[in-house]
């Protein structure tokens, strides 16, 4: 080996030291975060399902008997945060409605129609990256609802990747709610 070949070799090693910078310190914007459950609103118009606005629905998160928060959605879906310290999250779905006298159209009574939406899952602490830290993901996700009040029907779906029943992203649709259009 030639003596002069020390210099490029030394430079090569030096280069490897310089290029090994702290890339692990930056957490990209689009990194994984704890997902929320996305629920879409539909209605059935002449036997055909159609995305609908659900802004008249109100969602109350329930922790035991206490309602924790209220969220009024706009648009055809809502993303509901889940309680990752428990294995289920319950939401009260409320719709204000008025009962009118069929004869004269006068409002007789203002009532609240309500249903319960239940998410059951296994929260899992998931490592994202060195810079981003951790988030929770949910396994074995199931959705149940009492119907007949504000909710006319429910289709629980998690069709997004990577597998059925696994919630990894807020973009995944967890459930479709069919709103009663009786009134």
């Amino acid at each position: 080996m030639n003596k002069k070949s020390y210099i490029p070799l030394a430079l090569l090693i030096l280069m490897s030291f310089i290029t090994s910078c702290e890339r692990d310190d930056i957490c990209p914007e689009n990194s994984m975060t704890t997902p929320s459950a996305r629920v879409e609103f539909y209605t059935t118009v002449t036997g055909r399902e159609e995305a609908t606005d659900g802004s008249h629905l109100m969602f109350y998160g329930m922790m035991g008997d206490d309602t924790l928060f209220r969220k009024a959605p706009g648009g055809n879906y809502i993303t509901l945060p889940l309680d990752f310290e428990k294995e289920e999250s319950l939401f009260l779905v409320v719709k204000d409605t008025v009962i009118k006298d069929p004869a004269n159209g006068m409002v007789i009574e203002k009532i609240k129609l309500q249903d319960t939406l239940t998410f059951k899952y296994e929260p899992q602490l998931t490592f994202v990256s060195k810079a981003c830290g951790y988030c929770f993901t949910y396994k074995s996700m199931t959705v149940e609802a009492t119907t007949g009040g504000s909710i006319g029907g429910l289709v629980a779906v998690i069709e997004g990747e990577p597998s059925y029943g696994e919630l990894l992203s807020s973009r995944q649709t967890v459930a479709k709610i069919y709103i009663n259009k009786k009134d």
Partner: protein
Amino acid sequence: MKKRETYIHLAIRLTVFLSLLITPMVIYAQEKKEDTEHNLKSRKKEVADSIRMVERGMKSERDSTNKVHVVKRDSLIEIKHGLRIGVDLFTPLLPILGGNDDKAWQIKTDFRITPKLYAAFDVGYQDRSKDFMMQQTRSKGMFFKAGVNYALLRGIFDSDDMMYVGLKLGYSSYDRHIWGDTLREPQWGNEVIVDINDKPMALWGDLSIGVMVQVARNVYLSMDAAYDMILSSSDSNGIGPMMVPGVGQVYSNTTGFSFSYAVSYRIPLYTKTHRMKIKEHIREDQETISTKKKKEEFTPAFQTSTLIEE
């Protein structure tokens, strides 16, 4: 905090750079010195040989030069074998540079098997922490590296200075603590503080390049830089290697860079004669080169002027 780290990194890199520059210079100077000594010796020998030739009555100069430059390709060489034990000076220096309570040491050993091949074994301990943006980690444990070093430099047989490449397999099973990240969901009042204690394992390949110089009888200074590649790692939480003893910080779960600067002592054990194939550059004598040139010079039979005259 961030700024200080950058300064530390800069300081480390500067040290690396300077030592990388200095060590080859030392070797180069030493080799140059040896070369001139060697040249002097061989010239003296040539003079003595030619005198002897003249005395014997051999007048042909070319004959005498041919006899002097016989290339021997097979040679018997006596080589000292010994166990070299070294202490890494760089690893304990890192915490001092970083100004934290990290602890680390490393012992490097090698044993000469053949003139060019060394069996190498390193053992060490590291207790190092690293502050990532969202979380902190601390890894502590022993590590082991075993493999070979192969000398690259020619002329290593008479001097023990060498430049070498090393290929080793490293293993470490260490205690890891990860903490600092807090996950919150304000609407549900959730607050989970991440605090993980586990005992992961890592197996890695270590490709190194280094130089070693003898500074005193049986005392050596060596420096090497290694590229580490994680071959296999196990941990129950699926986090992957973050800091591995013997590797340091692991980038993108696979790559690490380690560095060592060691002072070693060789315990001489035995000397053994090896049959070696040596490639020697045939150095042509100045006189033969000049005679060759003279031969090659073109001398026309006629000068142009003479042709015109005719």
